[in-house]
């Protein structure tokens, strides 16, 4: 048993040792310990190094607000987590914990050289130091910042754990299981409300866990707690521990992160590591308590300097004394009780230093009875000790004069600058705060949510006050739900209430250039940095925050925000509320990506849509690519072929005989009704009135701004029925846009819209032998060029399956698209495949489709257009029904900037050296102009082409149509490529092959 463990004290299991490793050494704690309490029990305070200066740091709190003691925890490969707060990490046999931000060791850290050079790292040093010279950025500043930045080390392999996600609906959600939360739960549950109470700690109880000496309704605190929890469970209250409310969203939605297995030595395989709850509560009671503030003085960050309230928790909850010889430094009564409790178990209290002149008589009397020296009206002006504090310098204050300093030896310092209500969740919903001038802190004011705040969270102090307030707020919540509620009464004995005085940085007699009084421990921000920021012109706390990084670390300034504000306000000579409080944002504490992702990872990250013919493609060795949510066959390599070789072969085979392509992903919308043709006239640029049933037309869809949104071949099946196709990625957008116009602009039109994308499997046959292959399968239709010419459609049967047959082509070859009900897609594909063997049929994928269409000058919306391209820019003005009075986007085609010269226009490019261009490459007119060059456009599509005999490309180029035949230049990292501007149709410009 270590000398710091107090036998029989606390809620740890004294008979149950638990061993784990910290930085490779075995540490033995007790069941119920955290890493922090177990290390403190063996006298270790040094647990980390600070972020910027690499100063040695010890644990300073006992809760989730801990800024210093950040460690890595691991239970094997993939199960490593950086930046775990040692104060929250429960120990279990086999846990591996490591300190962070140090090399080679925690005791000796090379990075601490930053500390000696701290004058080089003033506030705003990021903005000042790295501005100049520009050439230093890539080679010096960025590598230095990257290697120095960040806390901890990222995990290097995939997380093998799984994470769960649940919804929860409850009448009353209570956040915080301290006295206020427990009392609120009783009131609400007794009124008949369904109550859920959550607490981030391993057990409910809150401040009661640190105050066993209190008596509630005649019972000692801990036995009252035990019977109260049993009673609440009997009342139907759900109590969830190890569960942090991470965010409070509108309309009473609260996000909870429940830690399920991190504390277990041997979790079951089917247990999720964490569970994210999305709670929708009729009413919320926030009973989160208050957080203790540090005092700001030179050297306030040495290991061994701990918040007084946390030292009380270590003693009474974990049975650990934080040291043998303590000095208490405070501006609040609460720290005195820590001194008294520690004195009672053998820690020598060398002094209680209080910044206040006058302190309560009963406290003075008790200190005197214990023989403790009391120094009121004193300040602290320094500490010493490299890896652990060994003395503290205190000075009397007379008026505004700091008197002679005196060193007091110690091995720990317990400090308290008073308490800040925990308002984070309350602020998440933009609820309003009010400045409490007396307490120099913010208190909750108005909220639009159905929410109450109880206890220390609204500035009340003491256990009785918390119980009474909690009971009342729980009753209010139940009443708001229409339930008759009463508040239980509570009488508390030995309640240790108190008050205090908020401080800015403590006065000192030292030369300020040599002092280091920390405000934000995690980001190493000192009081001096804050005052410098104000001197350099920062006026709002939001600017001060960003300039100094105060409150921007992973603890979101839980300890530092109010101290920072009070110091900045003092420097500005303004009242604090005029300087403002920075915004609190979810999550309340750092939350794993795993919990936020939940089930949405791997194959479940997004939907993968597969066509009915996908199994055949997979079986036949297709290489797939994602297109929107679809996975599509990109090419079908023969053994040993790379993509370029396979695509070249597929292109040649299709143009020579026949190729087969799964076009099922094309978006399909059925437009039906007496007003269908009028609707089509208004939506699409093209005229539809004269298109006869049985015919098809290329349809072009614009946005109201005149830019191309989508395109596709549209077949008129009958007077009142159109089969509209869209791009693969655009289907849902087009459908939404059509619905929008139909419902909100033209509700008078009698039209129905139905998405039929997944109802039809679509097989495209292309090539000179396409008809010969298809003809034997078709019944009830003459497929001859005369009877069924290009751009025809018909309803027929193909291989006995009901079909919609389109004679269309996206390759420039004789082409058919056969739509059959999705369930017959693969059967038809296989029949055509078998029959196609006599024609050396070739299955081709999206890559070959891209090449074949480019050779013919067909655009792909979204590749050759980018949302700023008009029909004229794309060279397809012919698709506009010029006689139509109106269609979506028509008026915009006359907008001044759209008719102005110099717009980027879609043209072809042929390189003069026969090399293939990079898609996305930028184009210039004069390759010898000074850098930065004027870029006049970019390459949108680029392919090797067998049919053309050399690589081809499309590009958008300013004024391109007037530059046909001219040379442009494409600067690349290794050379500049010259290319000639051409038209976009490279193959069969007369279209003879379509008409076969």
């Amino acid at each position, binding site marked *: 048993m270590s000398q710091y463990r107090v036998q029989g004290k606390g809620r740890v299991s004294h008979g149950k040792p638990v061993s784990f490793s910290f930085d490779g050494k075995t540490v033995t704690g007790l069941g119920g310990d955290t890493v922090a309490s177990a290390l403190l029990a063996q006298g270790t305070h040094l647990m980390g190094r600070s972020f910027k200066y690499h100063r040695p740091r010890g644990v300073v709190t006992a809760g989730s607000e801990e800024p210093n003691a950040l460690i890595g925890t691991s239970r094997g490969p993939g199960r490593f987590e950086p930046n775990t707060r040692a104060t929250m990490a429960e120990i279990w046999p086999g846990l591996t914990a490591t300190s962070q931000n140090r090399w080679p060791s925690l005791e000796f850290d090379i990075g601490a050289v930053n500390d000696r050079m701290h004058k080089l790292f003033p506030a705003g040093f990021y903005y000042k130091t790295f501005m100049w010279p520009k050439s230093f950025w890539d080679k010096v500043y960025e590598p230095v910042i990257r290697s120095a930045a960040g806390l901890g080390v990222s995990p290097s392999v995939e997380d093998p754990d799984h994470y769960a996600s649940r919804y929860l609906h409850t009448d009353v959600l209570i956040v915080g299981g301290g006295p206020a939360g427990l009392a609120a739960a009783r009131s609400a549950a007794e009124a008949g409300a369904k109550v859920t109470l959550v607490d981030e700690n391993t057990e409910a109880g809150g401040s009661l866990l640190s105050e066993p000496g209190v008596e509630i309704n005649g019972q000692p605190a801990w036995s009252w707690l035990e019977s109260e929890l049993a009673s609440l469970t009997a009342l139907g209250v759900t109590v969830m521990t190890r569960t942090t409310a991470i965010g409070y969203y509108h309309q009473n939605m609260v996000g909870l992160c429940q830690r399920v297995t991190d504390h277990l030595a041997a979790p079951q395989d089917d247990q999720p590591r964490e569970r994210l709850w999305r709670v929708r509560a009729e009413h919320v009671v926030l009973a989160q308590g208050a957080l203790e503030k540090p005092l700001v003085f030179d050297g306030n960050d040495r290991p061994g300097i701990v918040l007084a309230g946390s030292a009380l928790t270590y003693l009474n909850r974990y049975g650990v004394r934080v040291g043998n010889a303590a000095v208490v430094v405070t501006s609040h009564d609460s720290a005195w009780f820590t001194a008294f409790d520690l004195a009672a178990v053998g820690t020598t209290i060398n002094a209680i230093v209080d910044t206040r002149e006058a302190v309560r008589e009963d406290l003075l009397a008790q200190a005197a009875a214990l023989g403790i020296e009391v120094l009121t009206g004193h300040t602290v002006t320094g500490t010493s000790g490299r890896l652990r504090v060994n003395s503290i310098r205190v000075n009397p204050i007379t008026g505004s004069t700091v008197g002679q300093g005196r060193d007091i030896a110690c091995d720990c310092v317990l400090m308290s600058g008073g308490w800040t209500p925990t308002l984070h969740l309350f602020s998440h919903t*933009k609820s309003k705060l009010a400045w409490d001038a007396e307490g120099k802190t913010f208190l909750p004011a108005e909220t*639009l949510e159905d929410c109450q705040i109880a206890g220390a969270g609204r500035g009340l102090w003491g256990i009785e006050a918390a119980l009474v307030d909690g009971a009342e707020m729980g009753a209010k919540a139940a009443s708001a739900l229409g339930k008759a509620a009463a508040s239980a009464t509570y009488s508390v004995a030995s309640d240790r209430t108190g008050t205090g005085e908020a401080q800015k940085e403590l006065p000192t007699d030292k030369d300020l250039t040599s002092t280091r009084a920390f405000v934000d421990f995690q980001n190493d921000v000192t009081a001096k940095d804050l005052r410098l920021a104000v001197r350099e012109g920062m006026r709002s706390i939001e600017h001060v925050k960003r300039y100094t990084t105060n409150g921007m670390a992973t603890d979101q300034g839980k300890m530092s925000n109010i101290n920072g504000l009070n110091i900045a306000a003092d420097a500005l000579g303004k009242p604090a509320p005029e300087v403002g409080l920075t915004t609190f944002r979810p999550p309340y504490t750092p939350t794993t990506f795993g919990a936020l992702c939940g089930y949405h990872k791997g194959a479940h990250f997004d939907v993968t849509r597969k066509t009915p013919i996908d199994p055949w493609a997979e079986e036949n060795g297709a290489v797939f690519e994602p297109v929107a949510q679809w996975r599509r066959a990109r090419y079908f390599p023969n053994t040993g072929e790379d993509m370029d070789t396979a695509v070249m072969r597929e292109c040649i085979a299709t143009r020579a005989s026949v190729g087969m392509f799964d076009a099922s992903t094309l978006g399909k919308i059925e437009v039906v009704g007496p007003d269908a043709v009028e609707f089509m006239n208004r939506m699409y640029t093209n005229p539809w009135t004269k298109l006869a049933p049985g015919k098809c037309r290329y349809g072009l869809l614009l946005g109201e701004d005149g830019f191309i949104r989508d395109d596709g071949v549209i077949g008129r099946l009958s007077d009142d029925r159109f089969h509209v196709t869209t791009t693969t990625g655009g289907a849902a957008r087009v459908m939404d846009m059509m619905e*929008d116009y139909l419902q909100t602009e033209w509700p008078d039109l009698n039209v129905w819209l139905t998405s039929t994308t997944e109802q039809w499997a679509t097989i495209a046959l292309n090539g000179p032998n396409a008809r010969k292959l298809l003809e034997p399968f078709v019944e009830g239709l003459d497929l001859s060029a005369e009877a069924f010419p290009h751009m025809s459609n018909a309803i027929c049967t193909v291989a006995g399956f009901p079909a919609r047959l389109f004679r269309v082509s996206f390759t420039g070859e004789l082409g058919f698209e056969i739509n059959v009900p999705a369930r017959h897609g693969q059967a038809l594909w296989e029949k055509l495949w078998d029959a196609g063997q006599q024609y050396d049929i070739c299955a081709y994928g999206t890559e070959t489709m891209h090449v074949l269409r480019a050779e013919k000058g067909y655009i792909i919306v979204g590749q050759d257009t980018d949302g700023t391209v008009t029909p004229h820019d794309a060279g397809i003005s012919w698709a506009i029904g010029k006689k139509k*009075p109106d269609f979506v986007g028509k*008026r915009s085609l006359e907008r001044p900037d759209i008719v102005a010269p110099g717009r980027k226009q879609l043209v072809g490019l042929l390189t003069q050296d026969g090399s293939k261009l990079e898609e996305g490459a930028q184009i210039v007119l004069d390759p010898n102009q000074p850098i930065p060059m004027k870029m006049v456009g970019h390459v949108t599509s680029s392919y090797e082409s067998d049919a053309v005999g050399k690589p081809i490309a499309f590009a958008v180029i300013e004024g391109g149509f007037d530059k046909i035949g001219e040379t442009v230049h494409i600067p690349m990292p290794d050379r500049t490529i010259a290319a000639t501007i051409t038209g976009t149709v490279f193959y069969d410009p007369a279209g003879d092959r379509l008409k076969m």
Partner: protein
Amino acid sequence: MLLITCPYCQETLPEAEFTYAGEAHIARPADPSSYSDEAWRDFLFVRSNVKGAHFERWRHFHGCGRFFNAVRDTVTDRFLTVYKAGEPKPDLAKLLEDAE
């Protein structure tokens, strides 16, 4: 995640079922060709961008599929009312009074 009432379904449902569709009561003119360049620009691009009560369109995308109108406070994210497409613009002063 907001809770939104669909005026067609008469149900209050999670935001995930809905899609946002921009400012409401900007009707497409019956004859766009009669619009000046400036008037057409305003129709296309100029929006009120209010801080406070905002008339806006939502679609119950994963439900009945209908577009409807809502008045939402852009500061608090609170819905003051929802109503069907085509119904007249509600009286804002009265809505704000009712919300008090």
